[in-house]
């Protein structure tokens, strides 16, 4: 579904992604882990072209994407994204946040979009917040709205960029449980996270990055129990304590 071949990216002199090869299959949950600055967020952002790679090839749904030729606006409708800092639209209420893209991008009828927004709000457990503005929500609630907003475009895959890193510890659980639910439904997901317990539980594939390179890839059991690379075990012992 998402395939990267030898993707590289530079910020000036600094090479932040080094020849990344990665395959994400339909219905699969891939978790990217690694120290900060390892390139995992950049890699994720390359997948919906918020960042453009400097070399290498990216295939989405079996077709090679050339960012100059293909319609990136269309691609982004198919690949939803959830950000660390939510980025809800503060001048719109919760329901309007979710309806915005279906109505103005997909040209859905307002009524239809509203019905779907309601369903999604129920799904993330926030139907009582439909008419409030983002400013009055907690971080966990904001992130759940952000997930609903992305789902409203009915994407084929979802990217999560450290979705719980900006949350107070007691709010992490509510977001993770929504994500687990999504994974259970078979959504294709790529997740950058520091929540190792969550990664172990939901990931089909764990990818460990270090200094812009994929060091090791494998099932959670393999990566967490029997990492074959020295660097992986070092990192895990640091984060797991």
């Amino acid at each position, binding site marked *: 579904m998402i395939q990267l071949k030898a993707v590289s990216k530079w910020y000036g002199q600094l090479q932040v992604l080094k020849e990344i090869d990665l395959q994400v299959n339909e219905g699969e949950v891939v978790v990217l882990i690694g120290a900060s600055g390892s390139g995992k967020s950049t890699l994720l952002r390359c997948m919906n072209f918020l960042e453009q790679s400097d070399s290498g090839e990216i295939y989405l749904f079996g077709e090679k994407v050339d960012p100059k030729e293909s319609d990136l606006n269309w691609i982004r409708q198919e690949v939803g994204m959830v950000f660390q800092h939510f980025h809800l639209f503060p*001048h719109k209420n919760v329901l309007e946040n979710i309806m915005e893209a279906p109505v*103005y991008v997909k040209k859905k009828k307002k009524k239809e979009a509203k019905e779907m927004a309601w369903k999604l709000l129920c799904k993330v457990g926030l139907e009582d917040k439909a008419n409030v503005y983002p400013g009055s929500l907690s971080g966990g609630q904001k992130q759940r709205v952000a997930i609903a907003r992305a789902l409203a475009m009915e994407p084929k895959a979802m990217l999560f960029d450290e979705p719980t890193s900006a949350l107070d510890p007691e709010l992490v659980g509510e977001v993770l449980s929504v994500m687990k639910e999504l994974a259970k439904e078979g959504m294709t997901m790529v997740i950058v996270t520091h929540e190792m317990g969550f990664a172990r539980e939901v990931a089909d594939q764990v990818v460990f990055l270090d200094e812009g390179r994929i060091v090791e890839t494998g099932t959670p059991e393999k990566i967490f129990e029997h990492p074959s690379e020295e660097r992986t075990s070092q990192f895990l012992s640091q984060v797991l304590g």
Partner: protein
Amino acid sequence: MITLLEIFQTTFDEFMQAAWQTVQLTFWSLLLATAIGLFFAFCRLSGNPVLKGMALLYIAIIRGTPLIVQIVTLYFGLAEFVVLDSFTAGVIALAVHAGAYIAEIFRGAIQSIENGQMEAARSLGMSYWLAMRRIILPQAFRRSIPALGNQFIIGLKDSSLVAYIGGTELWASGLGAAADNFRQFPTYLVNGLYYLALILIFTFMLRWLEKRLNVEQRSVRA
């Protein structure tokens, strides 16, 4: 005091009419200036060096020369090609002038909206311009209201300079009345009070607008 009242009475009809002219002059020029400002704000933010250069040049020229010079130059300059009445010429000159300042106000407001808003909008499949129109500009506009209001107040007072190309607005009629009655001081004072009244009314309207537009954001923080 008696003189002031007397002057107020004798000039009332004339000044009221002229004040209405001032209001119209201000309204049309600022409406046009807002459009000009928005256009040049985008030019300044554009990656295109020609558009950006054009905006920088425009802003530099307008900010670097006195308004009265601009008004008179434009009036006589345009007269080479088309004959414009002083009202139309005044509207254009004031709009071109205020537009430069408003361009900077809008640019600052647009840049103050965090980048994540644009990214979130784009990640949902919105084009740059759709995201600009639906997500960035509504927020930027709200943020620019205090500075914009300030500029509008300046614009209202600046309209007095149209007197010097034969306008019939408030200051022109003040000059005319004083020339007739030879009582400059009380006449100008009364004339100034009309400006003060107009600006107080405008300030009041602005405060109301600001409150209204902030309603959601305030109610949610409670």
